[in-house]
């Protein structure tokens, strides 16, 4: 090849020998400055992998001489933000929510922070938009119906102690009997027709009339004479348009026959005091707060 050089006349440089329509590419050496920069980047690259976490090992990766870690950096940033918020968070933690003014910085901090607490801890059951999931019996928190009360105090209690859990002795508790063991299928059918009538839905008037007797015997103790529900017992209102599990004939039959037993964990041990108050404030201002 050496004796085969194709020297370009104008520049005296040899060419690559590639020929496109009579145009040949000069085979100039790389500029020295460029080459040194290139070598420099190689050295830099190797040094970088030594200084910073880089090479994957079986279970981890090389830590790097500088001991840098993005995770530690994030932890540091979180600690920084928490330190910034410490003062207002302390105010919120010790505040009486019913007297906290909406213009108070602690209130604003609570509503904004409560949204994050909700997304991280509550949205799994209640949905990111807090609209609940009817199929699972997770209540909608946006509407104006509350099983255990929608005042700030009631919401805070429910969040702190939960519902029907084994861990908190103060958890809200009530239990609907399994009427499949008490009533016959026919009687249950009659009761269902009456409950449908209560909420103004299509029903069989004759069966409902018989159901009224059964309802007064079996249900009014908890659900009230007109099916208006009793909050102290967490017994739902039956004469409104809102249903925890569903208001059609089939679902009501299932509810009466087998009962329901929705559980909510107690968040008192899991969340900080200011987080409980924050999520309470957040829930209360979603449109249904009392």
């Amino acid at each position, binding site marked *: 090849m050496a004796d085969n050089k194709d020297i370009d*006349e*104008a*520049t*005296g*440089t040899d060419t690559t020998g590639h020929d496109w329509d009579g145009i040949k590419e000069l085979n100039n050496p790389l500029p020295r400055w460029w080459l040194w920069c290139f070598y420099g980047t190689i050295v830099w690259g190797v040094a970088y992998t030594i200084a910073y976490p880089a090479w994957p090992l079986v279970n981890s990766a090389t830590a790097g001489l500088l001991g840098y870690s993005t995770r530690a950096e994030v932890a540091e940033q979180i600690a920084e933000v928490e330190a910034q918020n410490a003062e207002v968070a302390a105010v919120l933690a010790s505040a009486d929510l019913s007297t906290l003014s909406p213009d108070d910085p602690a209130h604003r901090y609570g509503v904004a922070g409560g949204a994050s607490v909700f997304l991280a801890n509550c949205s799994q059951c209640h*949905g*990111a*938009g807090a*609209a609940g999931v009817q199929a699972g019996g997770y209540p*909608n928190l*946006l*509407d*104006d*119906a509350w099983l255990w009360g929608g005042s700030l105090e009631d919401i805070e209690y429910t969040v702190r102690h939960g519902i029907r859990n084994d861990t908190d002795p103060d958890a809200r508790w009530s239990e609907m009997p399994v009427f499949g063991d008490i009533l016959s299928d026919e009687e249950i059918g009659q009761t269902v027709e009456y409950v449908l009538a209560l909420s103004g839905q299509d029903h069989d008037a004759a069966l409902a009339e018989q159901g009224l007797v059964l309802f007064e015997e079996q249900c009014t103790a908890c659900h009230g004479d007109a099916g208006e529900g009793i909050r102290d017992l967490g017994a739902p*209102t039956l004469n*409104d*348009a*809102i249903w925890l599990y569903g208001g059609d004939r089939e679902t009501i039959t299932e509810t009466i026959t087998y009962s329901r037993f929705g559980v909510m964990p107690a968040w008192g041990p899991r969340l900080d005091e200011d987080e409980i108050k924050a999520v309470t404030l957040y829930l209360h*201002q979603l*449109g249904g707060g009392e």
Partner: protein
Amino acid sequence: MTQPPASPPSLYAAREPIFPKRVKGTFRTLKWWIMGVTLAIYYLTPWIRWDRGPNLPDQAVLIDLAGRRFYFLWIEIWPHEFYFVAGLLIMAGLGLFLFTSALGRVWCGYTCPQTVWTDLFILVERWIEGDRNARVRLWNADWSLRKVRLRVTKWAVWFLIALATGGAWVFYFADAPTLAGQLLTFSAPLVAYSTILILAATTFVFGGFMREQVCNYMCPWPRIQAAMMDESTLTVAYRHWRGEPRGKHRKAEGADQLGDCIDCMACVNVCPAGIDIRDGQQMECITCALCIDACDEIMERIGKPRGLIDYLALSDEEAETQGAKPRPIWQHVLRPRTILYTSMWSLIGVALVYALFIRSDIDLTVEPVRNPQFVTLSDGAVRNTYTLRIRNLTADDRDFRVMLTSDEILRIDVETDGPVANHVTVPANETMQARIYVIARPDDPAADAVTTDLRLWVEDVETDDRAGVSTIFNGKG
């Protein structure tokens, strides 16, 4: 081309220093005026005051990056109105198309900052080191105390101008008197100093040392302009047919055969781009027209008509060589192409002015809550939630009534209202978020429909100015 060169020729050419000579004339006077006016606009604008009331800055032209506002006299541009700036840039672009197709590189020759500042730097150079011949001598002279003194003086003056140039720039971004005080007491933000220094450095180097190289090698605009010029575009040109053959010796034998050009080099000596216009149109020519002034002066002195070098189009040169009469300038300027550019330019201008006058000082955006789309209430009513962003573009707090219009019956309920139901107060110059509920009663058609169209409004309680946005209501359907 007889012998191939022994060694390959170098592909690199060092810069030839240029020493433009002083010149007097129509175009030089025009350029002095343009330089004075443009520099005055640049340096003085930030100092013009403009009273906007107590809550707003009183600087006539201010780019408030932190507050995200652009103030221009009585106009105040918010970030969402950036289309005004885009419109102005499009107008600037079309304006350059227009001027380039009519007058070639007239922007380069008269108003480009590179030209204006270089002109200013050459003026300083001439004051300190003398005119062309003196400067050439100084350039060739060995270093001496005098040369050092002149050079240092010149550089110092250049640097002061450069510093003032960078300094004026930062005043557009902050309150000028305050910032000036801070700069002098060394308490201004670091970014102000670094911006001033960077711009001072570029001004000093571009205006003092790189000069025409910026136009030749760095600036893309001349190359773009070259593509927009045609044979009717006016450029600075030499009347070849009249000047040639050129000759100095007017009294020598055969002088009557010579053209009007006496080869005095006046046109070359004054050229800031260092070219000879008699070689024809060249890439380096910025059409500053100084060679026209220089040549006219000579022509007058030797009793020949002016205009041996003149604003000419390529087509003129050919026609005149064939013996045609010079065409009047308006025939070059008024052409379908330039008329088209002018009408496009004016159309956008009129549209912008129109938009400026009809723009509202209330701005409303509506974001419906989509998770969930609706909430059923205990009485069977259906509720939708919307987040309103109400922008108050004035300097006073304003009370707004929030309303809705729809073909169906819907009720509105503003959550964040004040003492009066469904009223909100938006502070001056701020955007406020308000959450509102729209409710359809159980027996209203909207409750069972899939969607219902509605329009949400905010209306100023005092002035009845309103802004509306169309959105939809989701029902159970």
